Each structure stands twice: as structure tokens, then as C-alpha cells.
């Protein structure tokens, strides 16, 4: 396998998740590792021919039939034209890249998943993976915040898990807004506020976090206050990346490379490093 060469993939389906975000399902060569063997938290490089290539987190679980789920926010050069992608369109993929969430370290632990906005993408992948073998883990809690109710994604799915009692779910929005299925049970507060009333056993809790960089410092300091150790806090970092394989030099955090050493880091690795959390 040549990790520098995108392999062909086609758009199988695309559906809006929120105003500016879509769920893109791709189909590529069945059995290729880019679709069949990755860990939640890892990412792939998606190429839109003639336009460019971008890093995207896996949002679903590995598949044997070559299908890949990605959650894309339409914000710029490459992501905007993807909004008008149609089934059958040709794209390219290469991956998986980076280190995902440390599943083996999570065995038997209570897991606290904290997602802000688009951060739900890798955490949905993590959640779906955890739920495949629900019995291996302790409490599963998802704290999920977004700008407004309409920006909360995968709600049906998440509420269903909550109804079945396999996860505890807490939602929050910065401000209320329109929501297709009526407002869910949801607070109006910033994401870190959800940690205020959370009862957790710090000694057996691991936190997996993905969200906009601005919320990281507050989330981390709250968790530390709750007694969660630095090496039990895992954050997925976003950086500019061009190659995904440690060559292009853009994504260093301290002296670590986000693409090969991350994008998931434990806070123990990041503490004190300039620009790690911003």
C-alpha cells in the first residue's frame, strides 16, 4: 500500500446534518484498510479532484464493504464544493492516519465523551465502536454541545441510545434555535458548564474530547478539578495538515507532530506546551 497515493472512491450518499454540515458516505475498494481498519480518532485524507485534499476524521466504524462515513462542515476551498457532491461523483481517499483514542487503555473504565460542534464526528465513531461491545466498558456518558439546537447532529441516533439506556446523554446549546423534531431536552449553556453537576469517579474515568480549540482549556481545568488525572484526559487536536504522514511540517505541537503522534493526545503529553490548546 502506498499511503501517498489516493485510491478512487465514489460518493454513495450525501445528506445534510445541519445547515453547514453534511454526512458523506463514500464507497471505495472493499477490504482496503482506508475503510476496513481504523480506530476512532484516526483520520483520512479526502481528495476532491482538481480542488484539493483535506484531513477528515472517521465518523463511522470500519466496514468490510468499503463504505466510509464522514461528517463534513462546509467552510472553505475544498469543503464548499463538496456540498454539491452527488452520488457517483469521484473522489480519492488515503489513510488511515494518526493515532486514535487508546481503546485498550479504556477497558473497564467509565468513559466520558465530550463533543463540541463538529467534534461529534470522531466521538460518534468512538461511541459506535464502544457500543459494539458495550459490556467491556463502565458508564458511558456523552456531553454534547453546539451553537444552537439545529446544529446538534445525529440526534435521532443519540436519543435512541439514551432511550435504550446504553449511554447517558446531556445536550447543551449556546443559544436555542430551530430544530426539526422539536427541541430536545437540552440546556442553554456553554459546554464546560455540563461538567459542573456531573458525578463521576475520577479514578476510573477517562475523558475523550473533541471540539473547537477555544473550549479545551476550560474543559481540561474542570476535569482536573474533578480529580481526573492528566493521562486520563484525551483530546483530539486540529491542525493544518497537508500530507497527513509527517512530512509537510505544518502540524507540530511542541515537538510532536499532530498527524503521526496525534491527532489524539493525552493531556499529560500536552501540558505546558505552547500553543497546544490555544
Amino acid at each position, binding site marked *: 500500500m*502506498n*499511503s*501517498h*497515493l*489516493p*485510491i*478512487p472512491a465514489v460518493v454513495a450518499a450525501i445528506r445534510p446534518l445541519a445547515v453547514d454540515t453534511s454526512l458523506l458516505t463514500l464507497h471505495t475498494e472493499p477490504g482496503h484498510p482506508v475503510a476496513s481498519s481504523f480506530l476512532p480518532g484516526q483520520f483520512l485524507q479526502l*481528495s476532491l*479532484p*482538481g*480542488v*484539493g*485534499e483535506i484531513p477528515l476524521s472517521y465518523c463511522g466504524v470500519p466496514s468490510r464493504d468499503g463504505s466510509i462515513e464522514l461528517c463534513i*462542515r462546509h*467552510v*472553505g476551498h475544498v*469543503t464548499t464544493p463538496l456540498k454539491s457532491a452527488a452520488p457517483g461523483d*469521484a473522489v*480519492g481517499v488515503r489513510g488511515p492516519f494518526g493515532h486514535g483514542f487508546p481503546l485498550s487503555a479504556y477497558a473497564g473504565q467509565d468513559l466520558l465523551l465530550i463533543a463540541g460542534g463538529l467534534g461529534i464526528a470522531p466521538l460518534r465513531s468512538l461511541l459506535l465502536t464502544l457500543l459494539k461491545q458495550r459490556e467491556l466498558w463502565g458508564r458511558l456518558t456523552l456531553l454534547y454541545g453546539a451553537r444552537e439546537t439545529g446544529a446538534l447532529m445525529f440526534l435521532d441516533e443519540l436519543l435512541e441510545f439514551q432511550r435504550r439506556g446504553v449511554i447517558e446523554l446531556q445536550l447543551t446549546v449556546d443559544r436555542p434555535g430551530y430544530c426539526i423534531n422539536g427541541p430536545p431536552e437540552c440546556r442553554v449553556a456553554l459546554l464546560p458548564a455540563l461538567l459542573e453537576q456531573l458525578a463521576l469517579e475520577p479514578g476510573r474515568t477517562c475523558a475523550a474530547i473533541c471540539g473547537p*480549540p477555544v473550549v479545551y482549556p476550560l474543559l481540561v481545568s474542570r476535569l482536573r478539578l474533578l480529580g481526573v488525572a492528566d493521562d486520563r484526559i484525551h483530546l483530539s487536536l*486540529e*491542525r*493544518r495538515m*497537508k*500530507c497527513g*504522514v*509527517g*512530512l*509537510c*511540517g*505544518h502540524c*507540530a505541537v*511542541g*515537538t*510532536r*507532530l499532530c498527524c*503521526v*503522534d496525534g491527532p489524539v493526545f493525552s493531556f499529560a503529553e500536552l501540558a*505546558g*506546551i*505552547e*500553543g497546544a490548546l*490555544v
Partner: protein
Amino acid sequence: MATLFIAQHNLEAMLERLRRKAEVHGPVRGEDGVVRFAELIHGILPDLSAIRTLLPPKKYLLHPRETILKYTSEAGYQLPSESVPPLILFGLHPCDLAGINYLDRIFLGEDPDPLYAARRSALTLIGVSCTPDEFCSCHLYPSPLKALSDLFLNSVKGGFAISSGSPRGEELLEVLKDIVEERDINVPEDTRRFFGHAVSAQVRPELDATLPEWQELADACLGCGACSLCCPTCSCFDVLEFGGLDGRSAVRVRQWDNCLFKCHAEVAGGMSFRKNRAERFRYRYRHKYRGFGPLQGIPACVGCGRCRVVCPAGLDLRPLAARLEEITP
């Protein structure tokens, strides 16, 4: 001690023999006075008195701008299928050899870069010893980088002591047999000694962002990028994709980038992880003196002095590095 020796007046003959094997490039002083690595065609001798070329030999391995992928709607993305002819680089100084060693560690790692790998294996390196000037700092940083070459010429009276460093070098010696002789000479310790020291990959304290030097550097820097573009070990690149007018084809290009440029750490929406030049200077510093990723702990600076020579503002990181890395010159 018996050593292989090639006389100065045999240099031309040596090049002639090398040219039979492959195209030979070396430092050439242009009409404009700039020394560049360029083809040593018949009749042109390398300028071995020049301390450094403007661009380092990385230009042969990582072109300033090159196509890395081609796309057609029929064939999808494809690696460019150009054949890479063999090339001999003649007259590389130890710092440049160490620079190539650094690039090798990045681009020939676990997952070698196909273009780099192809060009690298087509490359034969012939080093030559040199005398550092006031811009050089090769003696400053102990480093595990090695000034590896296929052949190395050590300047001695009347010519060069010549030694091989690889099977390819041995082969070349064979070709040079009739102009190389064995002599009893005292070979001075060449500048290669400055590379090859092990350094501990110890984690040094995080850089102190409050040092006034960072802001001083930031205020004086023009942001022109000369320092890293001319650095033998700076290898950041940007990737751009250009669609064809036909709508069915495209090329993906990589181009030298620079950590001091505005967009280097920018992500979608204009948010940047290194908003100001002082932060970017620390980034550059970290890379040059502490290394990134798999190479962390290995200083990337090989001390060639180019960044200081080319900087229009005359910036010099050496004093800061001497202090922060506790290096005693």
C-alpha cells in the same frame, strides 16, 4: 599512514570519468557571482573555494515546486511516472551531507516519499572538506546526524585524500584507479568530525515565551522566507491542486513553504495556531534546535550559515541557541 590520494591537477580527469557514469553537478559561480549547484559540463571546474551555495542540495531531492500527483477522470490519481536519471553531486560540504542525512530521516522513514526515494537512490554524493567562515556554526551543535557520502575528498597539500563511504564509492574508486595513488600522508581531521556525536534526546524545558528576544526577532524579520528556503534541512511544503481547463484532469503540486508565513498554521475559517511572528519564530527555533516528531531531540541545524548570509535583516539565532541549548562554543 597509507592513504588514497588524487592530485589537484587530476580533478578534471576525475570529473571526466565521473561524467561517463552520470551527469555531474557541483558548485559553480555564475556570472552574477552567485554560487549554485549546477551541471559541471566539460571545461567547467567546481568552485571548491566557495563556502556555500545559495540553495542547498535539497533542491535536487525536493524541488522548489513539483508535481506529486496527476489526476485524470479515467485513471484517477497517479504518481508521476518520470524516470530519474542517475546524478552525481560533487563537492558537498559536510554540513550539506548532514543536511541530506536529515532529509533522509524524514522522507525515507517508515513510509518513504516516493518521489524523494526515487531521486535519492539515483544520487551519488561526493563530499569535500572545507574551512568554515564566520557564518558557519557546524562546530556548535553535537548531533547524531552523519555526513554520509559515497566518496569524500579531504583537502591536503597538492590534492585530496580520497576515501569511500559506500559500495557505490568503492565502484567509483575502481573507475578512478589510474589517477588515484597511494601515499603516505597525514590527513587532517576533516570537518566531518563535527557530525556524528550522539546527543541525548532529553526533553529540554519548554521555551520561555516571555524572553524579549522573540519579539525582537519578530520585529526585525521581513517575513521574506529566505532563511528556510535556503536551509538544507527546512522541508516544509505546501500542497496545491490545480484543475485542468477540460474539467477532467488535475495536477497536485507541492511547493516549499515556510513556518514564518501567515498561513502556515492557519486552519479553516482563518483561525491560526501561530498568529504572530514571535510564536512562529519559536516554532522555527524549535524545529531547528530541537526537532519534530520522530526526529525530536535531533537539532535540524547543520550549521551551514545560509540563513544568516541570506537574511536581509541580518538575523542570527546562534546567540539565543547557545544560551537556550546550553551549548558552549
